[in-house]
């Protein structure tokens, strides 16, 4: 092959490569726009509940009780009852466990004031890194509630190109559900919450939970414990008091050993309850192994209130 053909090959290949790089860069630039627009369209979905929760978190002047966890809080506590039992206003910040502990803690921390109480109830998935969605839910949360973007860590920003697109699809699916709900004259997901931030859309609905196989777990994640421990330290610097509790879990979805391991792992943090205290019969659960039915929330709420009252930690 002549050298002129060869150099023409290289020149043309370089031209194609440059075009491809330009296209990829343009595609990359589209991601934040698509995420933002899809987030805007998904505000009627679950992630959209963040607006009301944050508004309440910022507005409450008196010492408050902040519930930090995943959907086991959103679906599994009766905050008005908790307010009555404890005599202080409650903000339920639980949305979805897949958002991850770093973001969950980071989004409440700036609003904590002296005298505030925080109850943290992590889920089995947090302790064992079982989250099936990776960081997709995190990017969905931050795109629907854009103020949350500032809480993303450097590592989470780096993973955005990989997971951000899937997050946008999740937003669009939420937007579709919202549109169908509105078209059918029903309330959107975000509108089906009470003032404290509890989801109440499952009232009058019976348990549809079907036990699945118990997930296999490895070792407890040291990272989850470290993040929790650091949050406790930072919150206490602000004068708030953090209590570690546990998420409800369906009896068939967890083994005794897992609960014992979780208890042992969080023991140095002075938890206010044992993990096994929140293991309930399968029939108490609504659609997943951590979402209580509307009626069964009161049992968890009462137990939680008792644990808080009995604990010397914040009194």
């Amino acid at each position: 092959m002549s050298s002129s053909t060869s150099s023409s090959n290289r020149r043309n290949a370089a031209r194609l490569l440059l075009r491809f790089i330009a296209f990829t860069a343009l595609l990359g630039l589209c991601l934040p726009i698509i995420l933002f627009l899809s987030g805007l369209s998904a505000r009627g979905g679950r992630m959209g509940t963040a607006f009301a929760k944050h508004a309440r978190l910022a507005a409450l002047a008196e010492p408050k009780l902040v519930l930090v966890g995943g959907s086991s809080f959103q679906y599994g506590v009766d905050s008005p009852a908790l307010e009555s039992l404890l005599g202080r206003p409650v903000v339920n910040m639980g949305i979805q466990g897949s958002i991850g502990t770093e973001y969950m803690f980071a989004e409440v921390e700036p609003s904590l004031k002296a005298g505030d109480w925080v109850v943290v109830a992590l889920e089995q998935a947090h302790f064992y890194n079982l989250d099936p969605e990776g960081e997709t839910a995190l990017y969905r949360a931050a795109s629907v509630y854009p103020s949350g973007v500032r809480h993303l860590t450097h590592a989470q920003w780096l993973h955005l190109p990989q997971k951000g697109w899937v997050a946008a699809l999740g937003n669009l699916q939420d937007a579709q559900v919202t549109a169908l709900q509105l078209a059918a004259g029903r309330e959107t997901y975000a509108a089906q919450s009470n003032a404290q931030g509890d989801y109440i859309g499952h009232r009058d609905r019976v348990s549809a939970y079907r036990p699945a196989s118990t997930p296999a777990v490895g070792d407890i994640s040291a990272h989850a414990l470290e993040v929790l421990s650091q949050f406790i330290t930072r919150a206490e610097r602000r004068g708030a008091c953090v209590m570690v509790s546990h998420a409800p879990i369906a009896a068939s979805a967890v083994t005794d050993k897992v609960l014992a391991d979780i208890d042992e792992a969080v023991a140095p943090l002075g938890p206010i309850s044992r993990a096994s205290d929140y293991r309930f019969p399968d029939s108490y659960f609504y659609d997943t192994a951590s979402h209580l039915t509307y009626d069964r929330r009161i049992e968890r709420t009462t137990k939680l209130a008792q644990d808080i009252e009995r604990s010397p930690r914040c009194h």
Partner: protein
Amino acid sequence: MLFHTLPFAVLLSATFALYWFVLDGRKRAQNALIVVASYIFYGWWDWRFLSLLLASSVLDYAVGRALETSTAPGRRKALLSISLTGNLGLLATFKYYDFFIDSLVTAAAGFDIHLDPARLGWILPVGISFYTFQTLSYAVDVYRRDLAPTRDFIAFMAYVSFFPQLVAGPIERATNLLPQFERDRSFDIELAKDGLRQMLWGFFKKVVIADSCAPLANQVFAAPAEQSAPMLVLGVVFFAFQIYGDFSGYSDIAVGCARLFGFTLMRNFAYPYFSRDIGEFWRRWHISLSTWFRDYVYVPLGGSRVSTKSKAIRNVAVVFILSGIWHGANWTFLFWGAYHALLFVPLMLINRNRAHLEIVAAGRRLPTLAELLRIITTFALVCVGWVLFRARDIHEVAVYLRGFVNAPWSLPQSLVVYNGVALITALVAMEWGSREKLHPLERPSWRLSTRWAVYLALSAATLMNMANQDVFIYFQF
């Protein structure tokens, strides 16, 4: 290694850069690079099976060289037999041995004879049905003197293992692909750009269409007895588009990817769901396999130019049944092949099997009512075949087909259904508008900004759906 994963993106980029910027002008080095990249691509899945790929290459290269110096018909036949035994032996051992044993045990049990022979229990090497057929075609072509045997072992290894089409086709003929490895390459930027566009279209079909159709199809086929009649219909229609998007998407990616390296692979799909009869369907579906069987089985058997109609029918049945069983070691595949033979034979008997050679509604925007009815009827017949193809056993096929009539009638309401139907409609519309092209993004006549907007939209849709990362269906064949 899957096409829609990061490791493949890295492998493709590195190979492209080395191929054109470092090794350009040195075809033997370029071929060697392709061999290395292909072995990494294949070994990524399971490096142990690289030995099969190598063994298949060595066997047929050696047979080819021996045929070159052999003139005695007996010796030439013996050499061809070695290739056939070697390649088909690999297939029989890895793919069919346990199936034959299980069938034997079941048949013996029918006579109250209880056998318990040892089973191999080996996993099926990915792509074995594709590359063994490819090497076989080389040996047969050399034997027939349709092709001069190559003396360049590296070029031959590259032909056998060429990574874009190694594990799911198109099944390339040596007469088309091997000479391309023996020629100097020049980078045709227009061809390469079109290759990228075809890859994009392939990714869209696989990741967006096929993987969106898969959940509903899987759900319905997992428990057909529990489904309503509309769900059974939707289940098989979704499977029809799942397998089409999956397999034709793979082929588009393969063909497009090959173009980046200056190679032209054969077309494997030509809008098969716009076919007006089963004959046309088989000229448009998995073209590389159907033409392989035509050239290496049907024609040697005598094809349709035989003395009696019964022999012609036998030849058709043999080809369709072999084609069915090629897809997998299960009676359902055999019956799937036989079913298509049953549909094809009447057309052949009335000389209508080549009635539709031209593109449907060529030069017109819409089909006539008669054409539309023929397309819908053919699609419905193909879908009945897909039930045979997808079901786990014959009992499940019976349950499924009975359900079309007996199951309750309630319309499904879920986003998966709405979205799937919308995506299928969009795909059909885009492909209908492009049915005179090789793929819908070929030679786009839109303005630059529109073109880039379409590419960005298809890329974004593909990236959004990447979470599934389902493997390609045809990997299991």
